[in-house]
C-alpha cells in the first residue's frame, strides 16, 4: 500500500488554475522523483500536500488518512518533512536553533543530532553560527537536516541541487540516499542526472497534470518520453 497518494488534485492560486488533476503514488521506503518543465506545477504539488496552498479538488491521502483539509502544521505533525525550494533558513537563529525549531516533542533533537552530524559534519562545526553565515550548499544541508529532526515518515524535497556546485551536489545526493533507508522521499528535481541516479520511481507533470510515471530504470532508456516532456536531458 502506498504511503502517500494524490488523486485528481486541483489547486488554484488566485485566479490561476495551477494543478488540474495530479495523480501520484508514493510507496513506503521509495524515492520518487517528480519531473517536468518549469511551471508544470511541481512545487505547487509539494505545497499542496503540505497544506501551504489550499486544495480546490481531489484527495490527498497519507497513510490511509485524508489530509487535504488540514492546516500545514497539522500535516507536518503527521510526520511529513518539507525542504522548500529556497531553503528558508532562519537568519536570526543559529544553526542549532534552526534545527531545534523543527522539534515536535522535547528531545527530538537529542535523539537525532548524532545522525545529523554524521550525515553533515559541517553542521556540527558551525552549530553556534547564525544561519545566514552558511554558504548555499551548507544552507541546503541544514534545510534537509531540519526535516530529519523529528521522526518524519515522508520527506518532500524541492530542488535539492539547484544553485549548488557539482561537488556539493554529490554530497547532497549521498545524504539523501542514506536517509532513504528508513524514510520515504518525494523529490522535485530539474537536473535529470541527479534525479535519475537517486530515484526508483518517477512522475512527470505537464501543465498541472500528471502525464506519465513508472520505474526510473525504464525512463532512462525511454528517449521518446524524455524528449517529449522534459526536452533534451
Amino acid at each position, binding site marked *: 500500500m502506498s504511503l502517500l497518494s494524490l488523486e485528481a488534485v486541483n489547486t488554484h492560486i488566485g485566479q*490561476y488554475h495551477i494543478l488540474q488533476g495530479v495523480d501520484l503514488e508514493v510507496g513506503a521506503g521509495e524515492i520518487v522523483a517528480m519531473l*517536468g*518543465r*518549469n*511551471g*508544470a506545477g511541481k512545487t505547487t504539488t509539494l505545497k499542496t500536500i503540505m497544506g501551504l496552498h489550499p486544495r480546490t479538488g481531489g484527495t490527498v491521502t497519507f497513510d490511509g488518512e485524508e489530509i487535504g483539509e488540514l492546516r500545514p502544521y497539522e500535516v507536518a505533525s503527521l510526520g511529513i518533512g518539507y525542504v522548500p525550494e529556497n531553503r528558508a533558513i532562519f537568519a536570526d537563529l543559529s544553526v542549532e536553533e534552526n534545527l531545534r525549531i523543527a522539534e515536535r516533542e522535547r528531545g527530538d533533537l537529542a535523539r537525532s543530532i548524532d545522525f545529523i552530524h554524521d550525515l553533515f559534519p559541517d553542521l556540527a562545526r558551525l552549530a553556534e553560527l547564525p544561519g545566514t*553565515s552558511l*554558504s*548555499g*550548499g551548507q544552507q541546503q544541508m541544514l534545510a534537509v537536516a531540519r526535516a530529519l529532526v523529528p521522526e518524519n515518515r515522508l520527506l518532500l524535497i524541492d530542488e535539492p541541487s*539547484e*544553485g*549548488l*556546485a*557539482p*561537488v*556539493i*551536489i*554529490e554530497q547532497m545526493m549521498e545524504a539523501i540516499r542514506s536517509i532513504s533507508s528508513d524514510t520515504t522521499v518525494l523529490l522535485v528535481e*530539474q537536473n*535529470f*542526472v541527479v534525479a535519475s541516479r537517486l530515484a526508483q520511481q518517477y512522475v512527470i507533470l505537464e501543465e498541472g497534470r500528471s502525464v506519465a510515471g513508472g520505474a526510473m530504470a525504464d525512463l532512462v532508456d525511454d528517449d521518446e518520453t524524455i524528449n517529449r516532456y*522534459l*526536452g*533534451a*536531458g
Partner: protein
Amino acid sequence: MSDVLIRTEGLRKEFGALVAVDDVSVSIERGTLHSIIGPNGAGKTTFFNLVSGTIKPTAGRVYLDGDDVTNIPVHRTIHHGIGRSFQITNLFPSLTVLENVRLAAQATGSDGFRWWRSHARFTDYVSRAEEVLTQVGLVERAFDIASNLPHGDQRKLELAMILAPDPEVLMLDEPTAGMAAEQVPELIALIRDVQTSGDKTVVLVEHNMGVVMNTSDRITVMAQGAVLAEGTPDEISANEEVKVAYLGSLYEDLG
C-alpha cells in the same frame, strides 16, 4: 579582438569581518562571452555587483573602456552601457510586460520629465519594446501582468528589460536558474545571438556547466573571493585544481 572593455584592478569588498571579494583583477575583452563560475559563496555575485555599480568596493577600481567607473551612482551605469540582470527575478510586478520593457527603453532617453505630454506620444519606446519582446518571444504576453507570468517567462522578461536600452555590456546573473531544461538552449541561443549580431560583450554567472563550457569564449573560476583560474573552456575543464574545488566527478561520464 584583444580590445579590453572591462578591467578590474585589485577589487576588494568586505562585509564586516567577511571578505567577499579579495584582490580580483580581471580583464574582459570586447565582443566576447565571458563566464564566471565557482562554488557557492565564492563571491561571484558580489563581484558582479561591484562591476555593475550596485555596491561600492572597499578597495580597487573598475574601468569601462578605459574610463574609471568605480564610484558612479548606480542609475548612471546604464548610461555607460552596462545592463545587468539579477539572480532573483527583479521586475515591476504589478505592471504589464509591455510597460516593464517600455520603461526600460524610456530610461535611455531624456523624456522622463516631459510630464505635460501623454506617454502614448513617445512611440519610439513602444516600438523598441515590441522589437525586444519579439526577440525574446514574449510579444503574445505583452498585456499580461508581470507577476502572473510563469518563472521561465519572467526570466525572459528580465532579459528583455536589459536588452531594451541596447547596452554595450550584458551582465547576466544565472539567467537559466530555475528554468526547465528544455528552455535553456533556447535562452542561450538567444543570448549568443544578441551577442554576436550586436557585437555585445556578455558577462555570465552560471552554474549549468553544459551551458558554460559550450558557449563561453573565456572562463574565470572564482573560489573564496579570489580568482582560482582563468582560460578557455578547454583549459578550464583540464585544470586539476578546478576539478577538485568545483567540478567533481558528477559530469565526467556525460562528456
